[in-house]
């Protein structure tokens, strides 16, 4: 965003300087101002000919804006206007020159959203030849720029002085190159009113890299989730094995009952009912696994945090048994509503729980307890705590562990907690660790109610 702000400030400075120049050197800015052929010629002097015919009306409009030429609309201009609106001398900076100085695409738009001028950066970014742009509808470059029905963006205050322009509000939109490929940009629109006519200034910032960064972040989080599931693979296989075992034994028992004389149909019916339940149980395990390894964009929905915790609990249950670790849940039913991405928050909890297991691997089995608490932190915040009884963390580690590539595990990448941190940040929450007064450490996640990623 800072590049954009610098550019906008630069642009505004340029515009102000330009107005000041006109005050000082009335003839410094603009052309001779004769409409018609001369205007055409001077205009031609700035832009390659090409589609000049179609451009003429717009160029005349431009002349009207910036020159002291008579207005076909017949508006009378006051003395101050003349002074201000002044004569320009050839060689002085024009609006087009200013636009060329900017490091990003910038355009001026006329009536009905038609491009009047476009700097070289615009042509480069969108893959056009420079002279193709004037006269083209802006919507060809940005399909939905949000211009209103009059092809003008809403203006705050017609009476405000040109110098007190507010900074443009940038919006992220889709843009289209000449070859049809789409990409993300940020667009800022502002109307400049000069000499009784409105021109729209459009500034574009290419946001492909930010999109890519976001996508990379999502991909990394996904990879981390898949890796976690890999660690849990053996335990999850066991989880699936239980209903499969029950189903097999039930079926084989049923087969024996069917061979009996008389057939005990009640028993067989009971067996069939149990088989259905076990099948559902198996598909629940699959559902939970799928929910974790899902790849995709953030989906912000109202969250049932108790349900999220429950699913995570079932995912790690077998692993906990193998590691002779107990999990205690303390869930408060009365919680302020939290919104967020279920998959990502589940990932955070999964990570914290597995870390807690690891922290206690050196502790005698009788002491291996993880306590998971979910309760309101205030009327508009929710707090989740994962408390272990391991060896705790050294004070310098309390912060460091959230940095990337910090790990105490020989096979670890050290990314889990830094990813958790960025997920919690996206939810406008907080994640931190504290040592317990007795033993071990507790990891806290606080999420604001109505939080949005």
């Amino acid at each position: 965003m800072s590049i954009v702000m610098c550019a906008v400030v630069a642009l505004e400075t340029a515009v102000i300087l330009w107005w000041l120049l006109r005050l000082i050197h009335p003839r410094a800015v603009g052309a001779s101002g004769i409409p018609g052929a001369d205007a055409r010629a001077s205009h031609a002097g700035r832009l390659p000919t090409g589609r000049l015919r179609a451009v003429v009306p717009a160029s005349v409009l431009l002349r009207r804006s910036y020159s002291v030429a008579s207005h076909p609309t017949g508006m009378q201009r006051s003395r101050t206007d003349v002074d201000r609106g002044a004569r320009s001398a050839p060689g002085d900076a024009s609006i087009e020159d200013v636009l060329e100085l900017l490091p990003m695409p910038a355009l001026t738009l006329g009536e009905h959203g038609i491009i009047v001028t476009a700097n070289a950066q615009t042509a480069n970014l969108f893959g056009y030849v420079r002279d193709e742009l004037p006269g083209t509808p802006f919507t060809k470059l940005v399909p939905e720029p949000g211009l209103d029905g009059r092809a003008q963006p809403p203006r705050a205050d017609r009476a405000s002085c040109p110098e007190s322009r507010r900074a443009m509000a940038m919006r992220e939109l889709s843009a289209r190159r000449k070859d049809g490929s789409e990409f993300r940009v940020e667009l800022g629109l502002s109307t400049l009113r000069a000499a009784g006519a409105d021109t729209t200034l459009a500034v574009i910032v290419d946001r492909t890299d930010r999109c890519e960064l976001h996508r990379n972040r999502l991909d990394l989080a996904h990879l981390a989730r898949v890796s976690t599931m890999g660690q849990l693979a053996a335990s999850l296989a066991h989880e699936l094995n239980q209903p499969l075992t029950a189903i097999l034994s039930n079926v084989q028992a049923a087969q024996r009952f069917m061979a009996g004389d008389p057939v005990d149909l009640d028993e067989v019916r009971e067996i069939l009912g149990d088989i259905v339940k076990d099948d559902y149980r198996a598909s629940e395990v699959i559902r939970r696994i799928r929910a974790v390894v899902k790849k995709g964009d953030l989906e912000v929905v109202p969250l049932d945090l108790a349900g999220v915790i429950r699913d995570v609990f079932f995912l790690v249950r077998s692993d906990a048994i193998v590691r002779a670790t107990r999990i205690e849940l303390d869930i408060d039913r009365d919680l302020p509503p939290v919104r967020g991405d279920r998959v990502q928050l589940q990932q955070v909890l999964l990570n914290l729980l597995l870390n807690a297991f690891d922290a206690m691997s050196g502790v005698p089995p009788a002491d291996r307890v993880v306590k998971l608490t979910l309760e309101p932190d205030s009327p508009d915040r929710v707090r989740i705590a994962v408390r272990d009884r391991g060896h705790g963390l050294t004070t310098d580690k309390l912060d460091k562990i959230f940095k990337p590539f910090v790990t105490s595990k020989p096979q670890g990448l050290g990314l889990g907690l830094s990813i958790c941190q960025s997920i919690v940040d996206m939810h406008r929450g907080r994640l931190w660790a504290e040592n317990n007064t007795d033993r071990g450490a507790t990891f806290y996640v606080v999420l604001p109610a109505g939080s949005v990623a």
Partner: protein
Amino acid sequence: MKTMTESGSLVFIVDDDDSVRRALTRLVRSAGYRVKTFDSARAFLDRGHDEDCPACVVLDIQMPDISGLELQRELDAAMPVIFITGHGDIAMTVGAMKAGATDFLPKPVRDIDLLRAIDQALERSVHLHAIQFELEAIHLRLERLTPREREVMALIVTGRLNKQVASELGTAEKTIKAHRARVMAKMEVSSLAQLVRVADKIGVSAPAGADAAH
């Protein structure tokens, strides 16, 4: 093997997973065995009275409270154990077999595998019972002996002659001969060889420097 079921043997099934436990119980009952179930190893160990029939226990090796292996240790070979497991850990298998498990079956377990294992376990249980019964009987008989008779018995099973025993114990050979006869009668054996075998079974041994040189 119908004999096992007819003789009123008992199969214990211990698994913390409700639906697995129910299914296994159905299967074993459908094959004609008597079944009792528990949802934890602790509950099984606290079950109370000892069974007076052949019995075995089918046990999931990985349960929350105490592990199957720990339970096996507590049972101390008094009852054959069949382990079933969803985890398939090799190290665990070896540990279990070394500790004397009758069998080790992976989940999901097939009916023929489980029932065969149960049959073998119950046979072994019968065998263990028989041994136990015999040992108890021998001990009862041993209790009939007076302390002196016990001393004499410990010496004669080493192969010493009456004369030698008499000199070691400082009595007359005639006395020893009488003791010997009473030992044989009370222990219900009719030859020295039998007495020796009985003595071995309950671990009656001579004092240090034992076997008489001949």
